[in-house]
């Protein structure tokens, strides 16, 4: 009897304890905001998809090399988006507006860079006009110029530098002509002005280069490399994208964390009014913001073309929403968030191919963006300031 009684008590205590804990958990859950629920749901979804991915791998539904390819392409796309997203995030955090002309700065970098690459690669092959206007009469093809990383490495790297420099110059000119005059006008007028700038840039490019889509590079040479990547082979051009992308992101990190101007940029992003009364020369910081942001954006545009081989006046415009998605995902105005967001978007549009047809991958990416805007407007990191 006594023992029964004890058992009864201990079991009752443990039941009580468990019930207590469940209550506590339920209480805490009841205080969760919609954003937190959404975060949990998102994590759950990712976990379930990851389990399913492993299952498919084990069952042999998909091969490891397919997954390897998706991961690789995800990093390539992610880094390309990151280069442009960083610029957008910087203008947002320091100049306080959503720059809709970011996509056309990407296009600017692509055209100016490839024009330079053609000018260099085509010396002695074609006349200057043909080279500068990227082969308007289709007389000199990428094949003729041997336009790939091993065929014309010097031209391709010259193009990369020119893409950065020209995009910086264009961005600075636009800032001087437009944005500087309305520095304190507020986010909406600046945003609308930037839409105008976007269209103007686009059609200036159309005026010079026309609307046709042109192939500007040869298809990438392939590097056999079973060991490093699971894929059987890697496009050399993708490797160039990844190497330069990682290098740029890392350099940016160094600049932001360890240089005086980088710190001033973070200070201004943090608290513009205080930056002003601390003696930080805000206009100079704005200048540096454009130089870094536009430089990376221009390189991004140039490298996108290296990867996809073709170029037209809409190249950057079509990318703009993906750039925005990345920036929103990482928390608007956070530079590191933009980089992580871009990598996630890049991965998502590739790995989602396991479950959904390729036509729908961007739909998935944008649905994710909209859901985040609704439920976690400060980004997946929940507004944890990262710079």
């Amino acid at each position, binding site marked *: 009897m006594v023992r029964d009684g004890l058992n009864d008590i201990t079991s009752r205590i443990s039941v009580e304890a468990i019930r207590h804990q469940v209550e506590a958990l339920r209480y805490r859950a009841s205080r969760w905001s919609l954003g937190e629920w959404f975060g949990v749901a998102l994590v759950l979804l990712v976990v379930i998809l990851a389990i399913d991915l492993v299952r498919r791998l084990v069952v042999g539904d998909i091969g490891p090399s397919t997954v390897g390819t998706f991961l690789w392409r995800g990093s390539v796309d992610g880094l390309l988006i990151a280069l442009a997203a960083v610029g957008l995030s910087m203008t947002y955090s320091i100049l306080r507006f959503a720059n809709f002309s970011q996509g056309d700065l990407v296009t600017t970098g692509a055209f100016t860079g490839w024009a330079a690459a053609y000018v260099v690669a085509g010396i002695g092959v074609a006349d200057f006009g043909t080279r500068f206007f990227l082969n308007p009469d289709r007389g000199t093809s990428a094949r003729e110029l041997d336009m790939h990383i091993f065929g014309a490495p010097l031209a391709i790297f010259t193009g990369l530098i020119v893409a950065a420099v020209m995009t910086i110059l264009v961005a600075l000119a636009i800032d001087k002509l437009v944005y500087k005059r309305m520095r304190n006008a507020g986010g909406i007028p600046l945003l609308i002005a930037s839409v105008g700038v976007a269209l103007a840039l686009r059609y200036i490019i159309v005026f010079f280069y026309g609307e046709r889509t042109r192939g500007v590079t040869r298809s990438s040479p392939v590097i056999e490399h079973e060991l490093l990547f699971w894929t059987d082979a890697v496009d050399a051009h993708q490797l160039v994208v990844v190497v330069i992308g990682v290098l740029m992101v890392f350099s940016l990190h160094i600049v932001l964390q360890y240089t005086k101007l980088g710190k001033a940029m*973070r200070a201004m992003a943090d608290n513009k009014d205080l930056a002003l009364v601390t003696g930080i020369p805000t206009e100079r910081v704005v200048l540096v913001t454009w130089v870094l942001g536009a430089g990376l954006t221009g390189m991004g545009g140039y490298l996108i073309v290296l990867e996809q081989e073709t170029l037209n006046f809409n190249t950057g415009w079509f990318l703009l929403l993906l750039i925005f998605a990345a920036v929103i995902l990482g928390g608007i105005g956070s530079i590191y968030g933009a980089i992580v967001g871009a990598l996630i978007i890049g991965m998502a549009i590739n790995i989602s191919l396991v479950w959904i047809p390729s036509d729908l991958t961007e739909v998935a990416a944008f649905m994710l963006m909209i859901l985040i805007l609704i439920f976690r407007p400060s980004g997946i990191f929940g507004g944890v300031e990262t710079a």
Partner: protein
Amino acid sequence: MLIVEDLDAGYGDLQVLDSIDIEVTEEEYVVIVGPNGAGKSTVMKSIFGLTTHMGGDISFQGREISGLRPEAVIKEGIGYVPQRNNVFPSMTVMENLEMGAYILDEVPQDALEAVFERFPILEERKSQKVGTMSGGQQQMVAMGRALMLDPDLLMLDEPSAGLAPDLVDEMFDRVDLINEMGTAVLIVEQNAKEALRRCDRGYVLVQGENRYEDTGEALLGNEQVRRDFLGG
């Protein structure tokens, strides 16, 4: 040292200050009190070139400074701690202090050591992000930042705002200490009694105009000031 004479200033077309006179001499401790909307903060912002200058003069150590940009005012030797949002929250303590010395080519080690001596906790936590610190500690970061250039005049806009009551005294002690080390202090305070008790001189501002000016003691003893502005 600081002479504000007949100052008219405001924001855009809106005039807030109407012929304000304020003076701070070397190593003096001066308080500006007054009801909400009296223009106390506007006086400081005007000295720092953050308002629209509409008339009158502001001079510091004999040089006209009205119309100068903030970074030029800092170079003249004035430090300023705004009322709210006076730190860079996502940056570390050390980075906040470095920003305080931005106009110099290098971080002045002696000033840095002096700040750490005054606020030892800042040295302990120099790698911590300021946004994760308590209100009192953030206030120390803000003051430390303004002291990095070893200013001749330190302007504090409501330093006790948002501090827990037991921290307010500590804050005032710190201001006393800064003042005793030879830095003149101009302070705007809502905690009027305590500020007047500690200062050398005080101004009472009402609706953008000078109302009273006297030593802190005399203002505290002034029947009318007590009744109208200090809550009896």
